[in-house]
């Protein structure tokens, strides 16, 4: 997936490597382990739903979808091109399998809540997942949803925070600190689980535990590193929204392959 992310961003000449590489294991854990879905039937009514609220991280989702078989891997190279189904930020009307159109931060958790309410009202078994960026939850709407999902007893809703500590203007702690983060979500009546967001052995049990929740939504704080897997990008804010050039692409892919980080 990481190689695909680097390749498609290089080809597109723009995009967000930092926040796509930080959520790679989270997205992989969902698409290749935890979620019940069928790439051949993206409209299967009982599928689990996944909303990527941090829309700029969508290259990680496109990579997972392509490797899962939603569309040919070759199509990844159309990212951000005119007429493409792979828009710079996800567009559910263009690409089957994308559940929500996001990119204006702070809106996805509300949409995911609506999807979870729909499963509850229609007594359908699907689970709804929502991936949030850390800077994103500075948006007030996220806290409106944080307040309402426990009211509706949405045990079928799991939000995952990609806590990579970086946003465009700097470190999250400097721009607008989220701490004490776990305490805040607990105070809002969520189950809170903290994990290393790059370790499947952490992520998968956490997601399995979240799935068993009955009357409370779950908030998984996934501690991650921006630009994970490419040493010259790791922890560097300047790689938030800049694509690698050809030389950087070669170096990045060489490093990813050498490390065997094949997720």
């Amino acid at each position, binding site marked *: 997936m990481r190689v695909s992310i680097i390749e498609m961003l290089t080809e597109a000449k723009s995009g967000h490597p930092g926040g796509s590489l930080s959520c790679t294991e989270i997205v992989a854990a969902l698409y290749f382990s935890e979620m019940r879905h069928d790439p051949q039937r993206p409209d299967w009514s009982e599928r689990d739903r996944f*909303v990527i609220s941090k829309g700029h991280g969508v290259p990680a989702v496109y990579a997972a979808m392509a490797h899962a078989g939603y569309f040919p891997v070759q199509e990844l190279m159309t990212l951000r091109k005119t007429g493409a189904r792979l828009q710079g930020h996800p*567009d*559910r*009307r263009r690409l089957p399998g994308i*559940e*929500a*159109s*996001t*990119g*204006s931060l*702070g*809106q*996805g*958790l*509300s*949409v*995911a*809540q*609506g*999807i*979870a*309410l*729909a*499963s509850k*009202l*229609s007594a359908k078994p699907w689970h709804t997942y929502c991936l949030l960026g850390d800077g994103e939850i500075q948006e*007030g*709407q996220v806290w*409106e*949803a944080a*307040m*309402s999902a426990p009211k*509706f007893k949405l045990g079928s809703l799991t939000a995952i925070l990609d806590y990579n500590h970086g946003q465009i203007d700097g470190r999250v702690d400097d721009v607008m600190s989220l701490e004490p983060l776990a305490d805040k979500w607990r105070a809002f009546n969520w189950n809170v689980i903290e994990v290393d967001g790059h370790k499947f052995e952490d992520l998968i049990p956490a997601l399995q535990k979240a799935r068993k929740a009955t009357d409370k939504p779950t908030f998984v704080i996934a501690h991650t590193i921006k630009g994970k897997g490419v040493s010259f990008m790791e922890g560097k804010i300047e790689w938030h929204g800049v694509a690698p050039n050809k030389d950087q692409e070669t170096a990045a892919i060489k490093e990813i392959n050498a490390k065997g980080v094949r997720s």
Partner: protein
Amino acid sequence: MSSNQKPKATRQAFGEVLAELGTKHTNLVVFDADLAKSTKSEMFAKKFPDRFYEMGIAEANMIGTAAGMAMQGFVPFICSFGCFVTGRFDQIRMSVAYAGANVRVIGTHAGVGIGDDGHSQMGLEDLSLMRGLPTMTVLQPCDELETRQMIEFLMTHDAPAYVRLTRQNLIPVHDGEYRFRLGRVDVLRESATANVAILATGATVQECVRAHEILQKQGVQITLANVPTIKPLNSDDILDIAKGHRWLLTVEDHYTIGGLGSAVAEIISDRSGPTRLVRLGVNDQFGESGEPIELYDKFGISAAKIVQTVSGLLNS
């Protein structure tokens, strides 16, 4: 005019028909943001508590949540004052319109017609905001019958929609034969000799009906049409009316920027012709507290002021 109907606020008619439709349409769900008593969604809430969601004073979250439900096949109506709900423009832009979520956004308390509460509660730019969004259907009924037909129409309409409703009572202007047709202009009074045609929408339709009566007594003939669809508005209907008249006058309880007046201006500016357009409405200034009737006078959209404007045009 129908004799068996009494004046009624379009929000009241909305609340009543919504509660009726809930029986037949089991995929109808309703959201409110702590204004259910005012938007009249409480009638549905009482009858169908399992399909009513009280979201508290948090409109942005209400919009997104409804969008998520719409994507799963439900038909959500979300209710608030027009100013508050369209004030969360970005959520409607992204989570509803761009996402193709068939949410029905209900904005009550349209315009200066709400009176006492003053500017902060008045929807005055809501049509302008909603009209700017691709795929959005924008509607405004002028009496009880039209409200009922519009809401029923929206149960199966395949697009997101905004409906603008009044706090104040409106007289019935339609008889039982009336059928709302999306996009079409509804001609209420026609005259082959008229030089002025008035296009009105929502609460100002009744003002124009009164103005028509006064002018008729003075021996002045005018054409009067109700425009219930602000978008998509049928150009041919507008151009047909424009063709036969020297003056087109739009009258609305909304800013003159961005509402019906602008929609008509956009249509007639695309063609050359001698018809001149005059737009009446709240003209680039804020609303204020007061008696509705006095405010309609102040902003030039009462029957008396409409008569004055028409007479002025004919004498010019």
